[in-house]
């Protein structure tokens, strides 16, 4: 079943549900964790990768631990085959827990060591600028990654060089590896901080695909020399109520009963109810 961009914008829930189910299937198959992290950012990735990213644009998943969400999107776009997906996490796979470079056009860099995405994306944005190419670099980061000094180094470089084709997107679910962002190092991903250093900053509901899409569209028209920040308020584990806002679902894998419960809930919330609502 292929869904057009127009159909996604009209009713984003089916794609949101379908890719969530794909993510759960991958984690179930691998008996692996980072589920909450992937469910937290999948709607952002749908808006960027499926709707807004142009051919020449570059997308970098800086929070590489959410690789399953990237793989689900690239599979939807036809870049990763169903057959490749069956090898996820297995020996010899091109799809490890954190994205490996060199196998797919949509994965140009190794990511997952945190804080590397914004420097890379800033370089990509600058390369486009000096080639006078009208393209954008999107960097999807976790809120935890704003703890990293390199994030702030890159931010100041982007400001200094007026890279308004850099779109940083923060998946702000408020939970990092072993605690809430507030407990760990304070809110380094606050809109005030990013606004204060000079990024054109917009806050958005990170699960409202239409709103994210509109925000991206708007920011791309703002050729004002200011790099862009989208601070997306999200819920870790979004869509599976027993995972939502629960720190342990950063790392935990599902047992078979949990997998069943999760897929049932996603199917009901995103696919059945929403179809009835249309």
């Amino acid at each position: 079943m292929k869904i057009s961009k127009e159909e996604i914008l009209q009713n984003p829930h089916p794609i949101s549900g379908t890719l969530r189910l794909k993510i759960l299937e991958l984690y179930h198959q691998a008996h692996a964790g980072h589920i909450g992290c992937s469910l937290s950012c999948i709607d952002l990735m749908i808006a960027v990768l499926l709707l807004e990213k142009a051919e020449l644009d570059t997308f970098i998943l800086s929070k590489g631990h959410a690789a399953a969400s990237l793989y689900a999107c690239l599979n939807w776009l036809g870049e990763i085959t169903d057959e490749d997906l069956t090898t996820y996490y297995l020996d010899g796979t091109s799809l490890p827990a954190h994205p490996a470079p060199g196998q797919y056009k949509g994965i140009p860099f190794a990511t997952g060591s945190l804080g590397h995405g914004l420097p890379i994306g800033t370089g990509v944005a600058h390369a486009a600028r000096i080639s006078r190419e009208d393209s954008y670099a999107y960097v999807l980061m976790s809120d935890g990654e704003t703890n990293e000094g390199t994030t702030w180094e890159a931010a100041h470089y982007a400001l200094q060089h007026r890279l308004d084709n850099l779109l940083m997107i923060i998946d702000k679910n408020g939970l990092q590896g072993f605690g809430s962002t507030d407990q760990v190092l304070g809110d380094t991903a606050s809109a005030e901080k990013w606004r204060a250093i000079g990024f054109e900053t917009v806050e958005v509901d990170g699960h409202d695909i239409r709103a994210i899409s509109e925000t991206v569209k708007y920011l791309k028209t703002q050729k004002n020399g200011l790099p862009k920040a989208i601070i997306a308020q999200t819920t870790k584990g979004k869509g599976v109520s027993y995972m939502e806002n629960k720190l342990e679902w950063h790392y935990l894998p599902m047992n078979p009963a949990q997998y069943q419960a999760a897929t049932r809930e996603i199917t009901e919330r995103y696919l059945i109810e929403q179809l009835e609502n249309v």
Partner: protein
Amino acid sequence: MKKYTFTEKKDTRSGFGAGMQVLGQQNPNVVALCADLVGSLKLDAFIKENPERFFQCGISEANMIGLSAGLTIGGKIPFATTFANFATGRVYDQIRQSVAYSGKNVKICASHAGLTLGEDGATHQILEDIGMMKMLPGMTVINPCDYNQTKAATIAIADYEGPVYLRFGRPVIPIFTDPDQKFEIGKAWMVNEGTDVSIFATGHLVWEAIQAGEQLEAEGISAEIINIHTIKPLDEEAILKSVAKTGCVVTAEEHNRLGGLGDSVAQVLVKKHLAPQEYVAVDDSFGESGTPAQLMEKYGLSAKDIVAAAKRAIERKK
């Protein structure tokens, strides 16, 4: 002993600057980045002639490496420059993930390597950089011996597709190689043919090795001297051919004896041709403040140390 003379002394970092100026004129894809050390890296001419192709990163080396990786998208060839200490140890994870593992065509160009940056002291005198860089899969590691060779190497690496670590330094040393040389990555350079001992040297220790060769000759010892300007990929063939003839080895480098050229050569010998080997290198220590000459003397990197090591190696053949 083949005669080597010089009329001029210069720093190898100036050779890098001269190479960059040529690249600025010849290769429009070459871009340069620096972490607030443009004067030290001798980039002034490149910047003056190509202001739109120079990117000031400020004192944020880790970001400079990530930026360089990103700049390769679309075909730019970034030359990321700073002191060797900050170009390697400080930013190792960035180089590992974003450049080496990601297979990006970034040239990491590092000045002020080793003890001989002098009075700044141990905080800035990195002696572990060759080891760190050569351990990264896919990374090419080059340590040229003088101004002319550094200039030639700088120009050559732009034509090579893949990550490179180019190491050079601050001290003013004799220029004894051909100004028009063609630099071939991975191809060792025969400085002097000999029969009693093989001296494999890298960087400005090649000049010390030549001085040592002359002293040894005066004592009736014939030293073969080979300039290993490329530590990775290592020219194993040249090493094995030489040691097959001489039967013993001295390695000479301005680096910790752990993890440098010496260990690379030792691996070849262990696997393919057992022979006694003596190290001329820093003996697992940090440096200290001093003039380059004082430090070379104190840390055992001078011609006389190579002479003594050669005699020990020859003795061990018996």
